[in-house]
């Protein structure tokens, strides 16, 4: 009877998923409530988890709780420790959730909410969650080895080295693009700038508090930090209202970019306990808290989507970034659908904490579904804005016109009515001087979130507070990624240089540490500077580059996963990883090719360089031409690196399937679990 009821229940969930998806896809002309998206997403996730992920867990991976995990076998009280599955889930989710699933869907909303929504949900169920799940499984069966180590051991030395270089390059582009998001959110905003500047002494204070005043009291220090950061939001309001203080915190994009570069260097070079550790604790708690708040807000307040399901910009002429839905929607939304970066987390700490093999299912697949839901919420927040407002905030002056009146006229001419007076009122409501040309996604997401939060109480009087709260939240954890990423990039560079000279590889050698920090900061700083001086706003060139890089890393991870599945089962289940791999290769190579060779200057780097060379020459023209050619070269390098690992992988797969190569796997032998007996 129970089985029968279960089948009825799952049939109802599957039918609801299909019906709501169909209703969203068919909806034209009338406003759609966000609950349709929430229900469609949740039901699809449930069906994906219950049927597809369970199938992969049982048949493909053959997860076996009788087999001891690395956490049990190698338990050391430090890295390897059997941990409750929900705690591992929370830990893993906190590690994979970054700014990407918030910013990407906001930018892709220029196509309308439909393409982004479908890609986020379907991409996560069939691609992103599968990637995270498979890599976590592979790493767990290999004593928690990293993606690079698995690539080297399962595919070959070429694959391993290529993976390492690709990760380092991706890190540089990632840091530049998220830096650009912060700069665009803070330029000309004394309120936002004061609040974010204040988080730095707050983090240092927390660091000293934890180190010397109350050692070990992390929650206490985090609570203190949170109170001070909230106070800094109110302080920012006072600063913005003060004619004396406001100019001290009003900066241009270039000045903020330089400040960020200096900050990045200091954060990488300072002792970790002073800045990185306390900021990491604070941003993790704030991030999780805001995600919960946004989820509760959307579910209880059910905002209406004001953006249409599809906009005219599906034709590739969008102002936020240029390019058609295919392939650009699929690289703009990386985190939230498929993110290669997750493979680094899935082969990092998480596999060392799993106490039972079957926990891989909930932790690997389930966490990615939750991240996908965060992306859906960000999309809802952006799509609940009036379309005219959304485009006024996200369009660069180079496209819509350099005065508010010209920008409003251009956007209204596209069929999305907005006036300069309306934007001016909204800017005053949120305590900003202007909301035009605030590209990068963070300000429009903050506006959307603030509009949702004020419906919960407080009305428009609290709009400015919630807007700046959202900006603080986004900037806080973007800066944490920036701090940590610079340091990680420095370690990776030191590892590489250590092969040449052991001294350069020593992290305790001060000149080496400072030199490699400077190299990493200079690398992402250059791209950040390039972004803020780009007449098209920077996001148009850097975000696609980042999306391509991140998806190519996913392709590398899926190459590793496919190799291991072929070694386990031959060709029988290779479709599990091969289907998302083929899709990602098609999407990223198409996007990469267009970004390099498209004859349309707004899309193709080389075409833009040629157009600049043929146009009126100014003092900056030579630099802009060089930057476009450099971006084309970086994009080309990404494609070459991934082609290398792909060809190497195909060579290995063909050898195994044709029987000319031994299917030697590095999986650790079966050891019976004593925890399973206890359980």
């Amino acid at each position, binding site marked *: 009877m129970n089985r029968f009821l279960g089948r009825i229940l799952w049939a109802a969930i599957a039918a609801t998923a299909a019906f709501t998806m169909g209703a969203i896809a068919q909806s034209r002309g009338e406003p759609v409530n966000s609950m349709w998206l929430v229900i469609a997403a949740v039901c699809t996730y449930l069906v994906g988890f219950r049927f597809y992920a369970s199938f992969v867990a049982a048949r493909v991976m053959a997860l076996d709780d009788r087999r001891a995990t690395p956490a049990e076998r190698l338990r*050391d009280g*430090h890295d390897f420790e059997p941990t409750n599955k*929900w*705690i591992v889930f929370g830990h893993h989710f906190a590690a994979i959730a970054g700014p990407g699933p918030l910013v990407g869907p906001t930018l892709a909303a220029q196509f309308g909410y439909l393409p982004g929504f479908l890609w986020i949900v379907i991409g996560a169920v069939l691609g992103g969650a599968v990637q995270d799940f498979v890599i976590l499984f592979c790493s767990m069966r290999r004593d928690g080895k990293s993606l690079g180590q698995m690539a080297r051991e399962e595919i070959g030395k070429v694959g391993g080295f290529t993976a390492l270089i690709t990760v380092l390059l991706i890190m540089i582009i990632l840091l530049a693009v998220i830096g650009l998001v912060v700069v665009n959110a803070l330029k000309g905003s004394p309120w936002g700038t004061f609040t974010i500047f204040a988080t730095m002494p707050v983090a240092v204070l927390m660091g000293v508090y934890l180190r010397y005043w109350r050692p*070990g009291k992390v929650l206490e220090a985090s609570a203190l930090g949170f109170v001070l950061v909230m106070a800094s939001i109110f302080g920012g309001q006072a600063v913005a209202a003060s004619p004396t203080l406001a100019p001290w915190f009003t900066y241009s994009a270039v000045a903020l970019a330089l400040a960020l570069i200096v900050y990045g260097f200091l954060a990488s070079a300072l002792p970790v306990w002073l800045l*990185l*550790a306390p900021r990491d604790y604070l941003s*993790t708690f704030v991030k999780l808290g805001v995600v919960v708040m946004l989820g509760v807000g959307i579910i209880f307040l059910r905002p209406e989507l004001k953006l249409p399901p599809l906009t005219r910009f599906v034709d590739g002429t969008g102002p936020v970034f240029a390019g058609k839905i295919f392939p650009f929607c699929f690289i703009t939304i990386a*985190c939230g659908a498929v993110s290669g970066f997750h493979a680094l987390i899935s082969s990092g700490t998480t596999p060392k904490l799993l106490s039972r093999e079957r926990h891989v299912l909930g932790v690997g697949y389930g966490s990615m579904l939750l991240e996908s839901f965060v992306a859906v919420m960000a999309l809802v927040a952006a799509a609940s804005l009036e379309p005219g407002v959304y485009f006024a905030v996200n369009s660069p002056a180079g496209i819509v016109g350099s005065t508010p009146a010209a920008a409003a006229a251009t956007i209204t001419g596209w069929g999305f009515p907005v006036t300069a007076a309306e934007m001016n009122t909204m800017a005053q409501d949120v305590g900003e001087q202007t909301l035009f040309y605030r590209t990068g996604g963070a300000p429009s997401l903050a506006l959307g979130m603030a509009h949702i939060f004020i419906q919960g109480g407080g009305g428009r009087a609290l709009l400015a507070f919630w807007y700046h709260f959202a900006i603080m939240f986004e900037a806080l954890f973007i800066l944490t*990624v920036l701090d940590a990423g610079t340091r990680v990039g420095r370690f990776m560079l030191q590892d590489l240089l250590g092969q040449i000279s052991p001294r350069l590889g020593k992290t305790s050698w001060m000149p080496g540490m400072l030199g490699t920090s400077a190299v990493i900061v200079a690398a992402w700083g250059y791209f950040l500077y390039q972004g803020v001086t780009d007449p098209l706003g920077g996001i148009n060139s850097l975000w696609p580059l980042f999306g391509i890089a991140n998806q190519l890393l996913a392709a590398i991870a899926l190459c590793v996963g496919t190799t291991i599945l072929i070694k386990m089962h031959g060709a029988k289940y290779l479709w599990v990883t091969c289907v998302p791999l083929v899709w990602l290769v098609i999407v990223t190579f198409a996007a990469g090719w267009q970004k390099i060779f498209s004859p349309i200057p707004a899309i193709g780097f080389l075409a833009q360089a040629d157009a600049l060379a043929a146009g009126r020459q100014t003092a900056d023209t030579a630099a802009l031409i060089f930057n476009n050619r450099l971006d084309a070269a970086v994009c080309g390098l990404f494609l070459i690196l991934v082609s290398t690992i792909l060809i190497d992988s195909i060579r290995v797969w063909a050898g195994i399937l044709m029987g000319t190569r031994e299917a030697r796997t590095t999986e650790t032998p079966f050891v019976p679990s004593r925890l399973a007996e206890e359980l």
Partner: protein
Amino acid sequence: MKALFRRLVEVVSGVVAELSDQNAYRRHLAAHGVAHSPDEWRRFQDEHWQAKARRGRCC
């Protein structure tokens, strides 16, 4: 219902303890057979973050 709520509180506090490194510190103390002290915390912090700072944060 009460049991479910208690379980929820346990899980949330467990996640918070993991994210705030309280669990890791407890394991460190147990592994080294020492009691909490300011010096021990600083030693833990240095060792723990030396490894943690090498791990990338996701985008």
